[in-house]
C-alpha cells in the first residue's frame, strides 16, 4: 500500500536488512501444526513428573492455608512491629510478576514491537496465574476468610461502607480490574486460536468444547475489522491499567508516613520493578519451554536477546530509584529517613538483604550489556533466577526492614518467618507452575494467528531476495552476527501458489443439514493472502457489495478491499469508560460526603484526590467490558453453526486457507454466475452453499 508516486521511484539501499521475527522456512501450516500438536498429542515424558512435583508443592500450600484458616493468622511469623512480612512480600512479588505479561501484550503492541507475537500468549497467561497467586495473600490476611466479602463495595452492618480513602480498597479495585481486563485481553487474543483447535479437532468432545469457547469464530474479514480495533482498544486500556496497578500497590506503602515507605518515586519505581521481575519470570518459564518444544525458530535467540535488554533497562531504572531514595534520605536532612537508610544499607539487621537486592537487581543485570550474556540461554536462565530472587528481596527489604525499626527505638523488633509462612510461599510457586503446566498442555502457548501475521510470507511489500543474498548487506557480508544466526535457519518460505486439493470432491451446490434449499452464497478458496486481496478488490470492483473474506489471520488491507470502513467500536469503549467514571464519581462522593460522611486522615469530605484511583479503575473496567461486549455483538457472535461449515475445505480458514464469499443477499448475486465469477478470479473448490 504505497503512495502512487512511489511506483516509479527506485528502491533505497537496504544495508541493514531487518531480521525476520520467525526464522527459517516456517509456513502457515507448519506453525499451526507445531503449536496445535502440543495440545493434541500425548504429553512429553517430563510433563507428568514436573506436574507431580508442582502439584505436591501446591498441596503443601493448601495444607498450610487450611491450618491457617482453622487456627488464625497468628500462625504466621508476622507480629508487632513487623505486621506485614512474607504475606505482603509475596503479594507484591506476584502482582509484579504479572506486569510483564501486560507490558508484552499491550505496551509493546502499541509500540508496534511485533516480536511480541511469539511470547505474548505465554506472558499473558502468566499474568493471570500470577494475579491468582497474589490474591491468596490479602484473602488469607483477613484472618477470617469468610469475611473477605467485606472488601466488596457493599454495605455491611449499620450501613457502613468501605473507606474509599484507604489504599486497601483501591487495591481491591485495582487488582480486580487488572485481573478482569487481563482475562478479557487474553481471551480475546485466544479466540482465533481456539477456533483453529476446533477446526482441527478429531474428537467430538474437543470440537464442542473449543467450538463453544471460540464463540464460533471463523476469521471473517468483517469480524477481523472489529477484532483488530477491539484489540487496540484493550491494549490502550491495559497500558495505563498496568501502570495504575503497581502504583496503587505502591500506595499501600507510600501513603503512610513510615520512613522508607513514604516517598514520591514509589509509583513509577514499583512499575519498573514489576516489569523487571516479570520479564525475568517470563524468561524463566519460556527458556525451558522453548527447548522442550523445539520452538527456537519462533521464540528465537533474538527474542531472548531483546528481553534481556528490557531486563537491563528496567533493572537500571530500579537501581536509579534505589539511588534516588538513598540520595534523598541524605539530602532531605530528615533524621528518620536517614536513620532508616543507614540501617537498611549499612548497620541494620537486614543490611545483607539490602545488598542481595542491590546485587541481584542493579549489578547482575549489567552483564546484559554483553551480547554473549544475552544470547546464551543457560546463562540467561541463571541471571533471571537471580533477578527473581532480587525482586523478592526488594519487597522483603521495603516491608520488613522499614517496619522493624520505626520512629521509636522502644518498639523495635525483628521478624522470624514460621513454617506456615515458608510452606505457603512454596505452595504459591507450586500453584503458579501447576497452572503454567496445565496451560502449556491444554491451550496454544504461542499465538498462532498473530505469528502467522508476522511470517515473512505475510508481508505484501517484501522484495524478493536471492537465497545467497538473504540477510546480507550490499557488500555481500552479514551486517551483524545476528543476521548470520538467522540466516543459518535458511531463507523464509514463499507463499504457496496453488490451492491444495480437497480431501473430498466439492459439489457445485453444497447442501447443509437442515438447509432450506435456497443459496446462502458462493464461496471459493484462494492460494494465499495476496491473491485473496486481489480477488476481493476485483469482486468489489465488479459491483458486488456483500463480499467477505475468511482468513487465518488479519490480512492488512482486507477491510478496505471488501469495501468496509473502520469499525466504530471505539465509541463503545468510550461510552463504557465514561459510564465507569460517572459511576465511580457518583458512588464515592455520595457515600463518603453525604450518605455516611467520615473524616479519614484529616481530609475533607469532598476532597477528590483520594477518589482518583477508583475513578480510574472503574473507567477502565467498564470500558473493557463494553469493548468485549461490543466485539461479540458487532461480530454477531456467538455463532456456533454456519452454512459454510458444510463446505469440504472451509475448515482451513482458521489454519492456512483463504476464502472469498459473496452472499445471496447481494443484488448482483446469481448462483451459477457468481460461482463462475469467483473461479474466474482464480478461486478453487468454488461452490454455492445452501442457507
Amino acid at each position, binding site marked *: 500500500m504505497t503512495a502512487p508516486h512511489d511506483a516509479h521511484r527506485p*528502491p533505497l539501499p537496504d544495508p541493514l536488512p531487518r531480521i525476520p521475527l520467525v526464522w527459517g522456512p516456517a509456513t502457515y501450516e507448519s506453525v499451526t501444526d507445531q503449536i496445535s500438536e502440543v495440545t493434541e498429542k500425548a504429553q512429553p515424558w517430563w510433563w507428568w513428573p514436573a506436574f507431580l512435583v508442582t502439584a505436591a508443592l501446591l498441596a503443601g500450600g493448601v495444607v498450610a492455608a487450611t491450618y491457617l484458616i482453622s487456627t488464625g493468622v497468628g500462625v504466621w511469623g508476622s507480629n508487632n512491629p513487623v505486621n506485614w512480612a512474607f504475606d505482603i512480600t509475596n503479594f507484591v512479588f506476584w502482582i509484579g510478576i504479572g506486569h510483564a505479561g501486560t507490558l508484552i501484550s499491550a505496551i509493546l503492541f502499541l509500540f508496534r514491537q511485533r516480536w511480541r507475537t511469539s511470547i505474548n500468549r505465554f506472558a499473558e497467561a502468566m499474568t493471570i496465574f500470577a494475579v491468582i497467586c497474589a490474591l491468596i495473600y490479602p484473602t488469607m490476611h483477613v484472618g477470617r476468610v469468610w469475611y473477605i466479602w467485606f472488601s466488596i463495595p457493599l454495605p455491611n452492618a449499620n450501613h457502613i461502607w468501605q473507606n474509599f480513602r484507604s489504599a486497601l480498597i483501591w487495591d481491591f479495585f485495582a487488582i480486580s480490574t487488572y485481573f478482569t481486563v487481563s482475562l478479557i485481553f487474553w481471551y480475546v487474543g485466544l479466540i482465533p486460536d481456539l477456533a483453529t483447535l476446533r477446526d482441527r479437532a478429531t474428537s467430538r468432545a474437543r470440537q464442542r468444547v473449543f467450538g463453544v469457547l471460540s464463540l464460533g469464530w471463523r476469521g471473517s474479514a468483517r469480524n477481523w475489522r472489529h477484532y483488530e480495533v477491539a484489540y487496540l482498544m484493550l491494549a490502550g486500556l491495559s497500558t495505563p491499567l498496568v501502570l495504575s496497578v503497581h502504583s496503587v500497590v505502591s500506595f499501600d506503602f507510600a501513603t503512610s508516613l513510615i520512613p522508607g515507605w513514604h516517598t514520591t518515586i514509589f509509583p513509577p519505581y514499583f512499575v519498573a520493578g514489576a516489569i523487571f521481575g516479570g520479564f525475568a519470570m517470563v524468561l524463566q518459564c519460556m527458556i525451558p519451554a522453548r527447548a522442550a518444544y523445539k520452538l527456537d525458530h519462533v521464540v528465537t535467540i533474538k527474542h531472548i536477546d531483546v528481553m534481556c535488554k528490557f531486563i537491563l533497562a528496567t533493572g537500571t531504572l530500579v537501581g536509579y530509584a534505589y539511588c534516588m531514595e538513598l540520595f534523598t534520605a541524605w539530602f532531605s536532612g530528615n533524621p528518620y529517613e536517614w536513620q532508616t537508610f543507614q540501617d537498611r544499607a549499612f548497620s541494620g539487621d537486614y543490611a545483607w538483604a539490602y545488598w542481595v537486592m542491590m546485587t541481584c537487581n542493579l549489578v547482575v543485570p549489567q552483564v546484559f550489556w554483553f551480547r554473549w550474556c544475552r544470547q546464551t540461554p543457560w546463562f540467561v536462565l541463571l541471571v533471571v533466577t537471580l533477578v527473581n530472587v532480587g525482586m523478592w528481596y526488594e519487597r522483603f527489604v521495603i516491608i520488613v526492614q522499614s517496619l522493624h525499626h520505626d520512629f521509636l527505638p522502644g518498639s523495635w523488633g525483628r521478624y522470624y518467618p514460621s513454617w506456615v509462612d515458608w510452606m505457603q510461599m512454596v505452595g504459591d510457586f507450586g500453584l503458579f507452575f501447576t497452572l503454567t503446566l496445565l496451560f502449556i498442555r491444554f491451550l496454544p502457548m504461542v499465538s498462532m494467528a498473530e505469528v502467522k501475521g508476522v511470517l515473512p510470507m505475510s508481508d505484501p511489500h517484501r522484495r524478493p531476495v536471492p537465497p545467497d543474498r538473504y540477510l546480507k548487506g550490499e557488500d555481500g557480508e552479514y551486517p551483524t552476527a545476528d543476521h548470520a544466526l538467522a540466516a543459518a535457519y535458511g531463507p523464509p518460505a514463499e507463499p504457496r501458489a496453488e490451492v491444495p486439493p480437497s480431501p473430498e470432491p466439492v459439489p457445485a451446490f453444497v447442501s447443509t443439514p437442515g438447509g432450506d434449499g435456497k443459496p446462502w452464497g458462493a464461496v471459493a478458496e484462494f492460494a494465499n493472502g495476496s491473491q485473496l486481496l486481489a480477488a476481493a478488490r476485483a469482486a468489489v470492483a465488479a459491483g458486488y457489495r456483500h463480499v467477505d473474506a475468511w482468513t487465518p489471520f488479519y490480512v492488512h488491507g482486507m477491510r478496505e478491499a471488501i469495501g468496509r470502513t473502520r469499525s466504530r467500536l471505539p465509541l463503545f469503549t468510550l461510552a463504557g469508560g465514561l459510564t465507569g467514571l460517572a459511576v465511580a464519581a457518583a458512588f464515592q462522593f455520595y457515600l463518603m460526603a453525604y450518605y455516611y460522611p467520615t473524616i479519614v486522615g484529616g481530609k475533607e469530605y469532598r476532597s477528590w484526590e483520594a477518589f482518583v484511583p477508583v475513578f480510574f479503575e472503574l473507567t477502565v473496567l467498564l470500558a473493557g467490558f463494553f469493548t468485549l461486549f461490543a466485539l461479540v455483538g458487532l461480530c454477531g457472535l456467538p455463532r456456533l453453526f454456519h452454512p459454510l461449515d458444510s463446505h469440504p475445505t472451509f475448515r482451513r480458514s482458521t489454519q492456512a486457507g483463504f476464502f472469498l464469499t459473496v452472499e445471496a443477499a447481494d443484488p448482483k448475486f446469481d448462483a451459477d454466475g457468481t460461482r463462475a465469477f469467483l473461479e474466474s478470479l482464480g478461486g478453487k473448490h468454488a461452490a454455492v452453499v445452501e442457507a
Partner: protein
Amino acid sequence: MTPETPPTDPDGLPDPVAPLGDRLAGTFRTLAVVVGVSGVALAVGAATEPRQFFHSYLFGYVFALDVALGALFWVLIHHVADAGWSVGLRRVFENVTRAVLPLAALIVPVLVGIYTGNLHQWYDFIHKDPATLHGHEAHIQHVKHVYFSAPFFIGRLALYFAVWVIYSRMMRTWSAGQDAVGGAALTRKMQWWAPSGVALLGLTATFFAFDLVMSLQYTWFSTIFGVYFWAGGIRGSLAAGVLIVLALRAAGHLRHTITVEHLHDAAKLMFGFTVFWAYIAFSQYFLIWYGNMPEETQFYLLRRNGAWYPVSMLLPVLYFVVPFFMLLPRAHKRSPAWLALISVWILVMHAYDLYWQVMPVLHPDTVHLSYLDAAAPVCLFGVVLLATVRGLQRLPLIPVRDARLGESIGYVNETP
C-alpha cells in the same frame, strides 16, 4: 567527512532534501533580531530589577534547555529502539540538540544570580553561622553545605554539560557522516553508543533538576522530581519537533517524506507522554497530599497562596485534560492543523508548568507578571531555534543515507 558540503542525494527520495542554506537566511536574521531585542530587554531588567531578572532568566533557561535535552532523548531513543519510521524526524531533533553548546555558555547568568545571592536561597543558608541555627536546622545546613559547596556544585554542572555536549555532538557527527558514506557501520555505531547516552542523560537531567529547580525551596525534596522533569522535557521537545516539521511542510519541504503517517505516530507519542506527565505529576502531588507532612507540603502550600491557587488548579486541566481530549480522536492526530494547535498548546503549557515551578519562590503571595517573564523564554528559546535553523541550513533535511531510511519513506501506519 564533510557535513557542510554533502554529496548529491541518493535517487529514490520523494522530495528534495538539500540543505536550505541561503533560503533560510531571512528566517535566521529575523530570529536573530528577536533574540537580540529580547536580550536587550533582559539586560535592562538585569540592571533595574536583578531578582526578577534572575528568576525570569532561570525560568526561560530551563524551558529552553528542557527542549534541547528532550530532543537529545528522542535522538538517542531512536537508536536504542532501532526504529525505522522516525528516521526523517530524527534530523529535526538532531538539529535542535545543536542548542546544547550555546546553552552551556548561557548558564553563566544563572550562576551569577546564585552567587550574588539573587536566586537560590540555599546560598544564604549555607553561609549562615551554624551557631545561630537550632539543632535540626544545623544538621540540614551541614548536609546542604556539603551538597551545594561551590566546587562540587559547579563541577557537577560542568559534568552534566560535558555529557550532553559529547553525546549530542557524537550523534550529530556520525549522522552527518552517514549522509556522505551511507552503509550500516555508522548506524551500528550510533546504536552501540545510544543506550549509555540515555542512561547518562537520565541521571544528569535528574540532578540538573534537583540542583537548579527543586533546590529553589532548598528544604523541600521529592524523589520523583527528576522523572517529572524528564516527563515535561520529553513532551515539550516532541511538541517543538512536530512544530518545526509542520513549519517545514508549510514552507513546501518534506511533504512526501514526513507524511501524515509519521505525524500520526508522533501524535500518538504525544498522547502517551501527556498521560505519562499526568501520572508522574499526580503521583508526586498525591503522595505529598496524603502524607501531609510540613517539610513536603511546603511546595504545594506555596503554590496555593493567593493568585497562585487558580494557577495551580488550572495546571492539570490545561496541561492534561485539554490536550488529552484534543489528542484522543484519530482524526485530530492525522490533521496537521490540529497538531499545530496541540503542539503550540503543549509547548506553551510546558512553559506554564515551569513558570509555576520557579516563580512562586520570588513572588510568594501573588502572581506578578513581568515583561522579563516573556523576554527570557523568547530569547532563550530563540537561541534553540537559531541553532536549529543553522542545522537546516547546513545539513540535508533528513539523514539521506541512513540504513533505515527506506523504512521511513512511504511508511504506512498499520494501526487498524
